[in-house]
């Protein structure tokens, strides 16, 4: 009887997550999960992780009260968790440090990674250089063209960038090719996955590495305000900065958690990447989660002005948090994000990443509906230097105007 086989609930958040992978990947993932379990409980590993977060990336990142922006908006106080002040300008490095230290422990010599906009690729390349490991980054051919500067950055730090030539030639295909390469070379190669997605143990491992964000922020907020924020808001692409922000607040039932997805040009299929808002459960890249599908059940094509948010699935833990009602998921459009991008730049002198601008955009809508003694903590997942050229192009072509 088939029912004899033991069903382990490993890697599931409710019905989401799991390990929907071909047999060839199972032993590799088992090895990884076992190694991570051991490392997680080893004070030496945690010490090393903390050392690099502190000395290499400059943690802790501060929380910052946006007095000017709050005044301009009216209503609740807007606070930022300044993940943009990390080394390399985004939260991504928290995860790459954690994973590469694990890779080193496992005796791996090479790193492979996928990247969409190039932010994770850059973080992977940097940490691989730091640890003296060979690094290969898979990137869709279309993205390589769109993100030339990041491609050059990766190369400068010694990484090889391999174009993914199949399908839409973007992030989805880069993941396919990275997984294929990993199956073949797992003996000496570690797959450094960039968000809280993929088969078990990645979603929980990436969450653990990113949860430093919320852990710091919660304590900092308590220290400075003597209370917790009313809202925590983060943008959601794969969901790593959001789950990193939410995790330590999940137990604080009075704190509302809001993830913000990109509604791009609109809510028609192909115009957005608002997976949790508009998707239905499906299986892709080895895990079950909300997913945007076409009428055939295939992963839909997605769009957002910010390349770091356009993925047709999402980290499985978010699907779970949505279903149990612990977090809610909203969306912000390209134009709302651009508007928030300029607002923060002009009121506070902080240029946010377009990804983070989505979280900010929702905060700007929310704040005026709340009272002045309420507080909103927005995770500013990255800085916007990488987006400046794109914004300039949009202004030059007349698609947007500088306010």
């Amino acid at each position, binding site marked *: 009887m088939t029912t*004899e086989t033991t069903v382990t609930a490993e890697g599931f958040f409710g019905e989401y997550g799991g390990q*929907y992978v071909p047999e*060839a990947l199972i032993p590799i993932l088992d090895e990884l999960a076992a190694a991570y379990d051991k490392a997680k409980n080893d004070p030496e590993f945690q010490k090393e992780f903390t050392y690099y977060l502190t000395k290499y990336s400059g943690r802790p990142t501060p929380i910052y009260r946006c007095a000017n922006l709050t005044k301009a908006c009216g209503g609740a106080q807007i606070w930022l968790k300044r993940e943009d002040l990390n080394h390399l300008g985004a939260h991504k490095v928290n995860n790459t440090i954690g994973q590469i230290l694990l890779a080193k422990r496992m005796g791996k010599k090479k790193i492979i990674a996928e990247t969409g906009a190039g932010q994770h690729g850059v973080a992977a390349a940097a940490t691989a250089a730091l640890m003296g490991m060979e690094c290969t980054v898979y990137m869709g051919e279309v993205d390589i063209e769109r993100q030339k500067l990041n491609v050059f950055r990766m190369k400068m730090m010694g990484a090889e960038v391999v174009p993914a030539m199949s399908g839409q030639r973007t992030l989805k295909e880069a993941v396919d090719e990275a997984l*294929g390469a990993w199956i073949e070379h797992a003996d000496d190669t570690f797959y450094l996955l960039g968000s809280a997605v993929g088969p078990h143990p990645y979603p929980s491992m990436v969450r653990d590495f990113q949860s430093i964000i919320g852990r710091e922020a919660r304590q900092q907020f308590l220290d400075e305000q003597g209370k917790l924020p009313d809202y925590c808001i983060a943008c959601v692409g794969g969901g790593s900065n959001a789950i990193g922000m939410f995790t330590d607040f999940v137990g604080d039932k009075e704190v509302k958690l809001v993830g913000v997805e990109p509604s791009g040009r609109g809510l028609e299929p192909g115009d957005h990447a608002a997976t949790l808002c508009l998707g239905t459960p499906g299986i*892709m890249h*080895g895990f079950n989660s909300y997913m945007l599908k076409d009428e055939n059940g295939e992963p839909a094509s997605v769009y957002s002005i910010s390349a770091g948010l356009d993925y047709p699935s999402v980290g499985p833990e978010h699907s779970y948090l949505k279903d149990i009602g612990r977090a809610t998921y909203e969306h912000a459009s390209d134009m709302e994000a651009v508007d928030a991008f300029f607002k923060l730049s002009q009121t506070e002198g902080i240029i946010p990443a377009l990804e983070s601008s989505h979280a900010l955009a929702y905060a700007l809508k929310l704040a005026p509906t709340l009272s002045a003694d309420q507080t909103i903590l927005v995770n500013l997942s990255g800085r916007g230097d990488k987006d400046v050229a794109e914004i300039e192009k949009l202004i030059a072509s007349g698609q947007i105007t500088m306010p």
Partner: protein
Amino acid sequence: MKLEENLRRRRENKEILLMTHLVLGYPDFDTNREVIAQMVENGVDSIELQIPFSEPVADGPVILKASQESLDHGTKVSDCINFAKEMVEKWDIPFLFMTYYNIVFKYGEEAFFKKCAEIGITGVIVPDIPPEMGGSFYQFAEQYGISPVLIFAPTSSDERMEITGKCSRGFVYCVPRKGVTGAKSEFGDGLTQYLVRCRKHTSLLLGVGFGIESRANVEALIGKADIAIIGSKTIKLVDEKGAASVGPFIRQLLGEK
């Protein structure tokens, strides 16, 4: 199980069986029809019909590209089911579906297996639903008499081979190398030892796929495995030389002139 009985009966008077594969709707269903005719008329024992999915994580570039092109010109799951029904009615060999779990999930597990039974598909190969993930999947397969074929990999531990071997029906698909479909395989001592290990963990027939291209490859499997499975090679062949070249290729694999 219908698939196992059928294959075992065929195996009685052949030293090795030949199973082939194609991606439905690639390059189009008319070509699929012609290729299948060539395969069956020249002595293929069973055929895998792959329902295209855009993220075929177990497959290499050839099948990935074929799947994507098929989807691009609008192949639907319902087209694949209608086509399979037509093939099952026309040819007297067992047909299997090969696809990925999202397709089954979207269709509905029970509805999918019910449909397979209704149209006479005998087995399914869904590489991304390991036993641990597939409680209801394997139950519905059993209920509707469809054989789920599971996979052994060289990196599978003995313990895992026990689990997957128990769960598999029809035969066990033994992948002889690390990596995705399409790349060349070694057919030396390593393979022999690996197949001995596979044999230890299941009494089902052993099929070997991934990288079989020549009569020499097939011969290397005789006495060690029961089914030689040919995938990417025929797709490349049809791309390059057309459907009519499949017949001679099959005869050559069977050691005929």
